């Protein structure tokens, strides 16, 4: 693993990976970690996530020291610690921090695959998004909840909303034309895939006249946008 920086914070679907340089003395590494996490302090605020240490073997004692640094510098709540993989929910603040890190990280580019997607770079967000809140991620975003009008989801990969999408959604923000947007109720204020701006057919406006709520997805084919129901019938 070629790591130029002594400490790199990386996000994956399981939580935060702290990648450590194995050639640097532990004490110096601690200093770098402190610097790194205190810089990302506000992103971590109150988030609950899992932490993995990678790139070097750590004793239990060393691990505890590193966790202490994270606790001292941030209000992050660590739900689990491991050297390898584990599963935990990723809160949006943490996810945003991860995005910043992964954006500078060439290895974290979303994979562009054919029909089946084996994109590891996914963020799950539990709970809805309110007006003014946003999720930005270099990979795909799965939102479990509603995205209210005035909210934003900007993803390098796909956008999946397990709820009503009423805000703005941009899939394939890096130019990936294969990205799609899917929601249980697809009525965004605005929708973009890659470079295409998508205008939805006008909906019956006004209260009392609700749009038909059908799970649907939007995708690009031959430079055109299609919106199709997810289920027949």
């Amino acid at each position: 693993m070629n790591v130029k920086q002594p400490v790199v914070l990386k996000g994956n679907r399981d939580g935060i990976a702290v990648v450590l340089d194995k050639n640097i003395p532990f004490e110096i590494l601690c200093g770098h970690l402190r610097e790194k996490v205190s810089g990302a302090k506000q992103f971590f605020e109150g988030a609950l996530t899992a932490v993995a240490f990678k790139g070097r073997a750590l004793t239990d004692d060393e691990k505890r020291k590193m966790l202490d640094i994270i606790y001292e510098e941030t209000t992050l709540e660590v739900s689990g610690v491991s050297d390898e993989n584990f599963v935990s929910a990723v809160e949006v603040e943490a996810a945003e921090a991860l995005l910043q890190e992964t954006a500078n990280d060439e290895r974290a580019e979303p994979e562009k695959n054919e029909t089946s997607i084996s994109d590891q770079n996914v963020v799950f967000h539990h709970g809805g998004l309110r007006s003014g809140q946003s999720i930005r991620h270099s990979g795909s975003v799965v939102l479990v909840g509603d995205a209210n009008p005035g909210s934003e989801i900007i993803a390098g990969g796909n956008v999946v909303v397990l709820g009503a999408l009423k805000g703005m959604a941009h899939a394939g923000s890096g130019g990936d034309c294969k990205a799609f947007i899917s929601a249980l109720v697809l009525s965004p204020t605005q929708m973009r895939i890659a470079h295409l701006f998508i205008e939805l057919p006008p909906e019956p406006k006004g209260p009392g006249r609700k749009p038909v709520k059908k799970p649907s997805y939007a995708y690009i084919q031959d430079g055109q946008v299609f919106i199709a129901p997810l289920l027949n019938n």
Partner: protein
Amino acid sequence: MSEVFVITSGKGGVGKTTTSANIGTGLAIAGYKTVMVDADIGLRNLDVVMGLENRIVYHLIDVIDGNCRLKQALVKDKRYSNLFLLPAAQTKDKNAVNPEQMQKLCLSLREEFDYVLIDCPAGIEQGFKNAIAGADKAIVVTTPEVSAVRDADRIIGLLEAAEIRNPMLILNRIRPDMVKKGNMMSLEDVTEILSIDILGAVPDDESIVIAANTGEPCVADQNSRAGQAFRDITRRMLGEAVPLADLTDDRGLMNKLKKIFRLGGA
């Protein structure tokens, strides 16, 4: 065990000040020692709505700057002896206060009063941050308009970020006749978007305008429908389970005619 409520909305003109005045008066009528804090520095209104503008000597900034003691700045209401107002300064602006000073102020008010109500200014800038700094609960006021609901949604997000959990909603200025025709968002439409607990719905009522002009909050007016809604809201705040009233106005001309015919036919 005192509680500090902030009354906020994001959008201006939806009835924060009217709500503050009525809830404050309602709590005072119920026998609780209540203070209303006008946090809308530079654009004070609450004193006018309460009819207390000619009694103001010191204001919030005077207290914070140490020009007077807290008790000197509190204006006692003319009707209820357990109701007080801490007026805003009219000559300063929002930047004259910071959130830490507001927290300190709320702490000292908490010692004196059962309920502290903070009337928040519109917007999400400094004034909003000041107003919510010392609060432990929030009441979000909105009207059944798309723009007001959008702003309320933003405010709820900001309140949650500031760790003020479970804000309660007051839907103000509802017109049941328009809702019935499908020309106005219903209570259900609004709660579907905002998904927070509803504290009450207040009908659009002339008596509110009259009350603001005369400086007598309509919560004390037994004949006012809006007043009834605010009385219900106060009781719910005090922990009573009061069902949401049917807001349909039965005093319209057509209804009067119908009643007359019904009586005549009987």
